[in-house]
Structures are given as structure tokens and as C-alpha cells.
């Protein structure tokens, strides 16, 4: 149970970081933390206590295996997260070139 609570706590840290921080690089890090919290939750959802790797071998009887599907999903999700992070960092660099600052409160030309 405590693993799930820690996972939720991590999610909350990430959300706090996205909502409260002014520096856009810190916001990007917050996005990363949210992603990792969700990925961790996916892995936890497939975990079985004392489970072993789901590899089928000859003359072995496997009683308790972890669920392999969430692990495959997490790999995909990590790659997607990488793509988002790369794109957002690239945008942040271009923003710095245009505005000369990383402070989100000073990047406000769009209004209304």
C-alpha cells in the first residue's frame, strides 16, 4: 500500500512543480516527474509479490509471475515522454532567445 501512496505523493510533487514554479525549465522537470509517477504506477499495477520474470523455459514450473504487459506499456510511455520533453526543451530554448528570460510571469504577450 505504501508504494501506491508514495506514487501518489510523487504525482502531487510533479503537479505542484508545474503549477507553482515560475522558471519554465522547472515546469518541464515537473512534467517529467508527473510522467515518472504514472509510469511507476503502471509498473506497480503489474507487480506480484515474490513474482518472477515471465520467461517460459523448459522443465520449469512457474507459479508466480509478474504481469509483463504493463512493462511493455511503460517502455512506450517512456519514449513518448522523451519526445515531449525534447520538444518542450527546444521550445524553451527558442523562448529564451526571443524573450531573454525563463520567467513565466514575464512571458506574457498573449492576452485577452
Amino acid at each position, binding site marked *: 500500500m505504501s508504494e501506491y501512496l508514495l506514487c501518489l505523493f510523487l504525482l502531487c510533487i510533479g503537479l505542484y512543480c508545474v503549477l507553482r514554479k515560475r522558471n*519554465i525549465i522547472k515546469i518541464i522537470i515537473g512534467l517529467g516527474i508527473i510522467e515518472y509517477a504514472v509510469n511507476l504506477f503502471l509498473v506497480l499495477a503489474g507487480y506480484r509479490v515474490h513474482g518472477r520474470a515471465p520467461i517460459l523455459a523448459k522443465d520449469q514450473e512457474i507459479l508466480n509471475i509478474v504481469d509483463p504487459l504493463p512493462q511493455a506499456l511503460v517502455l512506450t510511455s517512456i519514449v513518448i515522454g522523451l519526445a515531449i520533453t525534447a*520538444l518542450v526543451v527546444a*521550445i524553451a530554448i527558442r523562448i529564451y532567445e526571443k524573450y531573454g528570460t525563463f520567467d513565466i510571469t514575464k512571458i506574457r504577450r498573449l492576452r485577452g
Partner: protein
Amino acid sequence: MNHEPRTMNYLIPFFTIIPLGAAFLISLFGKRIKGLPDFLANLGSFSLLALSLYSIFLVIGGRTLVYKVGGWAPPFGICMVLDALSTFMLVTVNLVSFLVTVYCINYMEKYSDKYKFYTLFMLMLAGMNGIIITGDLFNLFVFLEIASISSYALVAFGTEAEELEASFKYAVMGSVASSFILLGIALLYSYTSTLNMADISGVLAEKQPATLVNFIAVLFLAGFGLKAALVPFHAWLPDAHPSAPAPISAMLSGVLIKVLGVYALMRIFFNLLGVNNTILSLFLFLGAISMLVGVFLAIGQWDFKRLLAYHSVSQIGYVILGIGLGTPLGVLGGLFHLFNHSLFKSLLFLNSGAVDYSLGTRDLQKMGGLREKMPVTAATNLIASMSIAGVPPFNGFWSKLIIILACLQVNRFGYAICAVLASILTLASFMKVQKYAFLGKFSEKLKTIKEVPLAMKLSMVILAIICIFAGALLLPLFKGFLDSAVNVLLLNNYKEAVFQAAI
């Protein structure tokens, strides 16, 4: 009994193969061979349109087609499902995207790196078509991210200060929403131990109602609601949509928010989780709020594209209101309005792009008297404005009428009044556009402007003609197209349909 169309299921993956292949070829050869990006993008989107029109005949009479990826039967493998609702959405998306690519031939000349634009465009199209045809929940998430990431990049395509700022905002909010969706999927997987959408609906129907399902519903509502720009989650849209190049604004407002938001909401709530009165009244409330807030914010805008973007929020409210009624007439009105809105909103954004192309400004106060110099743009804009404001006999009138009638049918008078009020305010704000941009006095500074080139004119005129005649979809001859899409949502036999088709 005719088994012929069932064997045509090998066509289904082509909805994602064609745009992905086009994106690959364009990015590989587009820089060296001039004219190739235009040709490939138009060929790709035209063949997608032809394929989606053909698929209407495959699903006629509520038939369902399933393609098993790698030959693995559901619920074990990934499957792609083509039913009447998917076909309806595919026709909407591919019709708009074909006309937008025609428009791009001339419009995108002013940007460098046209081939990169087309690559991203095709990736976005692949993502949207993928969301529509997939039958697997995680696959839906992957396609959703493909479409979202390419749209973040496309919003920033001009790399001006405002565009980057809008894109950053959009990317941050969008990826938080995606995380919520993924969390919802993870919870749903741990509860049902399956990812196949048909199987999930079967498993959930057998279990007792649980609090966890409500929690998952809230996560999905927040995630997809943000993608659809429903009112508490709409803050990114008025920044992101106007900042993109005009054809992309047309795609984003016209189809992206509907596929990523409304279609996914409909599919997940009606076919997977199952709707109850609480969820439906939540839909109704969100729809009505979006409708009113969107239009009130729109009426004060002076930036042409920003005004249109706020109207997208408002019109999505109509769609959600119609669907939230949950009656056959209401859902019919919602879907029909979704189709109509994608037509006239993309036409309006293409008009704003045409004005921007000739004048170089989006400020309504700097325009005036464009009717004389740009007759085609002015005429098509008049048609689109009348459609969005719901003036008979244009298409917007019929779908709004159905939604209002559906409200009255179930005695929701308050919501009917909201819908009428929003429609009147829409009319007012488009009269403002007409007055300041196209009528009025012709200023001396604008003497040198010219009408836009042929390809842009062509796509605007075709969209305007469809806007005039789309009301004909309600005639008995064509009504089966909409009715069978409504039946997919309301008949509650998604699981049986998919599993029978997969045999």
C-alpha cells in the same frame, strides 16, 4: 447473406499507413525534390478521403469490421475497428484535411521549410485517424500522443515569440492531460486486466458498480475535456489556435479538438464505461457553460483568429450538450453539429488566413471594405458566418435546431434557452466581423491588395458549397449515415459487434 464487405477489413490499417508513409517520404525526399511535398501530401489526403467515403459502403446498415493486427484475435491482440461512428468521424476528418492541404499549396509559400510542415501535418493526420479506428485503449493513447505532439510543434511553426509562448502553454497543459489519461488507463487495466476496448466494456458490465470506475471517469473527463477545450479547461485554446498558421488553425479547431476530445469522450463513456444520469448531467452542464462562456469571451475580441478560436469553445459546447442529452435526437444533433462545425469553422479560419495572406494583419480594426478587392473570400466568409450563427437554410441552423428541439423533448428548457442565447450572441459577433472586415469603407492603404491565388480560392469555395448543402444529410436518403453512427453510441452492443466481426 452477403459476406463481401467483411473481407475488406484489410483496408482498415491504410487509414494510418497512408499518412505515415507520406510523412516518411516527404521528410526523406521533400528537401531535394521541389514540388514533391505538395504532390505527396495532396495525394495522401485525397486517397484518405476516397477511402473513407468508400468505407461508408462497407459499414452500411450498422455493420462492424475488425482488422486483427498480426492475426491475434481480440481480446489478446490489438484490433482495429471500423463501425458507423468511426466512418462518420473519418469522413469528417479526411474531408477537412484534404481541402486544407489543397489550400496549403499556395498559403505555405511564405514559410520556409514547407516539407517539414507537411511531415508534421501528415503525422497529425495519422494520429487522428489512428484514434478513430483503434480498438485498443493503450493504442488510443499512443495515437493521441502522436497527434498532440505534432500539433504542439505545428503551433510553434512560425517560431515567433507569441507562437512559441502559445505552443509552450499548450504543450504543458496537453501533456498534463495526457498523464491523467494514462493514469486512467492504468487504473482501468488494473481493474479489468485487459486493454481491448470491447473486452473492457464486457468486463465492466459484469462487475458491480464501483467507486474506482467513477474515479477513472473523472480522470478521463478531465484529460479528454482538456483536449476538447471544455470550459474549465479551455485556457490554452484561444492562445494556441490563433498562433498556428491558418491551415493548421483550421485543422486544430475544425477536427483535432473533436477527435482527441469529443470522439474519445463519446467512445469511452458511451461504449466502455457506460453512461448514467450523473455523467450525462455533467456533460450537459459543461456543454452549456462552454457555450455561453465561449461566446461571451468571443464577442469582445478584435483579433480575427482569436475571435474564431473562442467560438470553437462555444460550438464544442453545443456538441457536448447534444451528446449529453443521451436521447437519440440529442446525440444525432450533437454529431451533426460536430460535422457542420468542422466544415464552417475550418472555412472561417481559411478565410482569416486569406485575409492575412493579402493584408498581413489579423486586426479587425485595420480591415474594411475587403468585399470589393476580395470577392471570393468575402462571399465564402458570409456563407460561413451565416452557418455558424445558425441562419436558415445553412447547415448550422439544422443542427442547432435539432439540439434545441432535443432539449425541449426532455423538458430541459433552461438548456434550450442557453442554446438560443448563445446562437444570438454568435450572430452578433459575426455581424461585427462582416461590418469591420468586409463591408464598410475602403481605406486608401489597402488599395494594392489582391485576391488570393487559385488553390486557396478553390478550397474555400468547395467548403462553402458543402456548408450550403450539408443540411441535406437530414433527408431520408442520407440520414442512415448519421443514424447508424448514433446507434453505435446508444444501442450498447459494442462488445458483441466487435467480437462477432472478429471471428
